[in-house]
């Protein structure tokens, strides 16, 4: 075994632990003797599931009363370690999510320690952790080592590891007290809105049908919805059409959106910018439809159709309806 202890940032969707947290636990328990989770909310609600996946202890802040997780969780961790109340880890694994990035940024400043970002693989080099980061849209991997001599923070991209339980016992729970945050803690969440499509979740669906700029106009996205529905899949989108306001951000696949690895990914009118490729190139099978034969999406496609989505999609929808 390499490291003595790794801390994993825990996130939850309602009653369930988020997949990204369980994924990181798989990596953490292979790299360290002791794996512990730190999180906002009530750790008792998640101790059984986290324990099953290898966490021995869950440190949690309790309800934050609408405060954002970044400043609150990072301040609580820094205070607990700084005061000597808690024996800190050799490394932190934090998911590349909105709250995860906030926690990592705040924690890096409070502990004056580096953040190694966009990590898709982890390995040990002596007693130091090394993260692999894909660059240039995934054609090159760089390996980045923590050389600070302090506990490094690794921001891990979703779907980098497969979440598997290990039959561990329910985790112990400990309180993580949030200190007075002063002005820095003044932001408050006043309302929460969901914008997800009906049907399977985008990052869990076996089939994802995504649309891009090649659809021409917002109304044409209806073809994507129809096709996704008839295949029992989830509709997705490139950043270009999310930025244009055709569909909500929760549909976005890519570097700044969701990472998906479905059995089939159908890219319709998507050119395949780096931004998009890093979010879907791990799909098992990729079908691409695009007018431009030079589009980068064809470099990753198992089946590429050089053609107009406005001609191919209606026929495909009809053919599937007739089966």
């Amino acid at each position, binding site marked *: 075994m390499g490291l003595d202890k790794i801390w994993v940032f825990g996130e939850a969707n309602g009653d369930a632990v988020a997949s990204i947290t369980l994924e990181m636990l798989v990596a953490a328990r292979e790299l360290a003797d002791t794996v512990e989770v730190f999180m906002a909310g009530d750790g008792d609600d998640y101790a059984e599931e986290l324990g099953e996946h290898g966490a021995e202890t869950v440190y949690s802040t309790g309800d934050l009363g609408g405060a954002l997780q970044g*400043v609150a969780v990072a301040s609580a961790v820094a205070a607990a370690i700084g005061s000597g109340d808690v024996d800190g880890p050799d490394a932190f694994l934090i998911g590349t999510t909105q709250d995860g990035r906030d926690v990592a940024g705040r924690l890096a400043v409070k502990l004056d320690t580096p953040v190694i970002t966009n990590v898709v693989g982890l390995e040990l080099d002596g007693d130091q952790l090394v993260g692999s980061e894909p660059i240039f849209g995934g054609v090159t991997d760089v390996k980045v080592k923590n050389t600070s001599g302090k506990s490094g923070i690794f921001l891990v991209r979703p779907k980098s590891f497969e979440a598997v339980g290990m039959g561990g016992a329910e985790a112990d729970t400990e309180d993580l007290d949030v200190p007075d945050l002063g002005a820095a803690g003044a932001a408050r969440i006043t309302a929460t809105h969901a914008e997800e499509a009906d049907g399977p979740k985008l990052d869990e669906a076996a089939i994802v049908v995504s649309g891009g700029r090649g659809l021409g106009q917002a109304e044409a996205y209806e073809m994507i919805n129809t096709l996704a529905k008839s295949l029992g899949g989830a509709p997705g989108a490139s950043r270009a059409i999310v930025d244009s306001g055709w569909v909500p951000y929760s549909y976005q696949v890519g570097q700044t959106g969701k990472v998906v690895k479905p059995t089939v990914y159908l890219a319709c009118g998507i050119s395949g910018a780096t931004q998009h490729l890093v979010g879907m190139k791990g799909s098992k099978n990729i079908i691409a439809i695009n007018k431009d034969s030079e589009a980068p999406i064809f470099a990753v496609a198992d089946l590429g159709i050089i053609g107009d989505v406005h001609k191919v999609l209606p026929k495909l929808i009809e053919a599937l309806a007739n089966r």
Partner: protein
Amino acid sequence: MTDEATELTMNKTRKVPDATRRSSDSKSGRYLGRPAWGETQPEVADSSAMKVVVCVKQIPDPADPGALDPETKTLKRDSKLILDESDSYGVEMALQLVDAAGDGEVHLVSMAPNNEVSGLRTALAMGAASATIVSDDALQGSDALGTAKVLAAAIARQEPDLILAATESSDGYTGTVPEMVAALMDLPSVTFAKSIAIDGGAAKIQRQTEAGYDEVECPLPAVVSVTAGVVEPRYPSFKGIMAAKSKPVDELTIGDLGIDADQVGWAGAGQEIVAIEDAPAREAGEIIEDDGDAHERIVAFLDELKVL
């Protein structure tokens, strides 16, 4: 933290919004940015002056294929640098917020080698009033934390009401610098904003989440990172381009900011690239041209995968 930063925090935290003024102009803030799904947003202008600092990064043109220098393991930056497109949204948002406030100005802060200003000029041409560029040989190899230390110190000198940044740069995409800047300045922060309204002394922000968005209220001064698409960036006018040439750009070194060389650059980075490898490539697939029957090939492909 620099002395300036401490001073800024002290001054600004004491600047509690005046209750009388709030009640007169705070029916609701003027929302800027993309409307929430299925919602319309109120448009009531706020009338107080605002100073907004926008962090902008100047990057190699993404249209040119990138490369790592095998010697230094940093991104090659020998071509001319341009304004990161991600930052054009923050610049536009800042201009619109100052406009809505009726009074104020937009100041840019950037860190780049050799006092590079070609990207800054683009943002100045859009309408920003002035800029700070921090250049120093000691900055080469800086990681996100080192970069944030420099930006925070440079921003603090401006005593802004609001600091805007992109959620992440298009070349490094660590996505952690805005939150680090907030932490270094001891300010509140809201990342992933898709709309911002200023209402008296506070910002009302719609923040993207994994499932949708949250409404967040945050007193100023604050750091806010904006998503691409939050507003439609304007194209610089000819007049704007001409005016940009004479707008003030303050050139600073880390010494001017009171930062030690061992805090930044290679010395301060605390991380090192130990290997650069080609990622496993996907096997080339079957590419066909649609002759009217391509949909049949797709159905057959899906059939082979037994997903129908």
